[in-house]
């Protein structure tokens, strides 16, 4: 288990290897289908959303408004990342993103962008909404809630010891590519 704490420097990110289990602490920004499409189409990030040396979390959390105006995160597991594959590489490059948390992996373009820019893909356990909600210590802010709806908004989350596995590292290695090749070969033997 490696601790990966803010600031997420290039050095720290490049020291990670495919298969490493990490516990992430710091600030992350959620972003999924609507946000990725919006940025790809030239949309501007609201002031306050800082992706440089930051981490994007593919997540549509369940958030309950509290009487004092704050938000309580009651469920925060990852969404399937591959839907953002058309956009992710470009966003990593343009904004200097250091980490993408999600599930199910990403494709070759993201793999290439991770290698070029010093970024990793961090696979969280899909469906572990409660375990991961416990890692959210504070919901600092929300952006685009009205435009995109709660699941698709940019939520600014302070997380602590958030568990994930490095399945794409910054050196061109992808656990997804390896497991696919292995399972494909195994299947051809079993047909």
């Amino acid at each position, binding site marked *: 288990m490696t601790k990966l704490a803010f600031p997420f420097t290039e050095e720290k990110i490049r020291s990670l290897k495919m*298969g490493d*289990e990490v516990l992430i602490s710091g600030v992350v920004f959620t972003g999924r289908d*609507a946000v990725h499409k919006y940025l790809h189409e030239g949309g501007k990030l609201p002031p306050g959303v800082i992706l440089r040396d930051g981490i994007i979390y593919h*997540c*549509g*959390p*369940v958030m*309950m408004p509290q009487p004092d105006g704050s938000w309580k995160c*009651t*469920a*925060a*597991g990852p*969404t*399937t990342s*591959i*839907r953002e594959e058309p956009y992710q590489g470009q966003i990593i490059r343009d904004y200097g993103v250091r980490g993408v948390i999600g*599930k*199910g*992996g990403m494709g070759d373009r993201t793999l290439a962008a991770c290698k070029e820019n010093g970024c990793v893909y961090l*696979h969280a*356990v*899909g*469906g*572990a*909404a*409660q*375990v991961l*909600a*416990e890692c959210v210590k504070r919901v600092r802010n929300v952006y685009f809630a009205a435009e*995109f*709806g*709660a*699941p*698709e908004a940019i939520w600014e989350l302070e997380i602590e010891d958030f*568990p994930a*596995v490095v*399945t794409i590292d910054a050196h061109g290695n992808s*656990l*997804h590519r390896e*497991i*696919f090749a*292995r*399972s*494909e070969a*195994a*299947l051809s033997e*079993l*047909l």
Partner: protein
Amino acid sequence: MEIWARVTLAPPYKLNTNIEPLNRLTAAQAGLSLGKIYMSQLQASLVELIRRTSAEIPNDVHQAILTSLENEKKGSLAANAIKIIDQNIALAKQKSQPICQDTGSILFYVDVPVGYDQIAFSEAAREAVMEATKKGFLRQNSVDSLTGKNDGTNVGPGAPAFHFHQQRSPKVSVKLVLKGGGCENVGAQYSLPNEKLHASRDLDGCRRAILDAVLQAQGKGCGPGILGVCIGGDRATGYELSKTQFLRRLEDRNANPELDALEQDILKTSNELGIGPMGFGGKTTLLGVKICAANRVPASFFVSVSYMCWAYRRQGVTLDAGANIEGWLY
């Protein structure tokens, strides 16, 4: 002026004889509907069904997950993922909060007697979904496909989905499946023959198609998953029937020996692919495979594969004459 009205339902369905005033309701209005008391209790019972379905994994699924943990190598990525899944199951039940934040499509399977008011049931169910969403048991999950807007109510055209099944029995039973979008996206429908898969119109061809679905899904459906399959039907009924397979218990066996053999074989073979939980690599790729068959037109041969994630949220209740929950089905 108060009007006392006794709401009677079509026989053989008898209502609990709790007579309460129905203010400003004409006798005609009282007689036609399911009755305010029944509707109010029905909504409450459905909210409780939704709550439990969302926050508590059914026993058969939990058992299967625990068994898979024993089978995985200790300290492996697979074992650690299943440990987190198990912790999550306990936490969700304790906090009465969603097991997974994607509370998914809301699929109601309702068995009703002849003459039961399905329109009124649907209204009560929609109210229950909205109430459960406000309470946080469901995420605001319903998006207008044309405008992209999410109004937060969690209801809309096609949502929730109702499958009513009439039967010659006074019992009302309501089964609920919450199926997330991630696993929904890795379902697939194959048209046989399929040249690329060398799949002909026979059980071997079906096997090739189903295993291809497992291969392509990798970990994207949040495995270890469960397959619901229909051989035959048209494109719509094929998928629809494949999902009814999720109403079966994990440990049950198919009454058709050919399909039983196919189910067992695909489960074993899928686990030999080594995809593992979350696609991390491991011994447990699937927890179960359930297959049914339906007639088809000569020109078509579809194999429809629906993929259910480990967060297999499926529960059901039987309702008494007053719409109170009588018993739980899973």
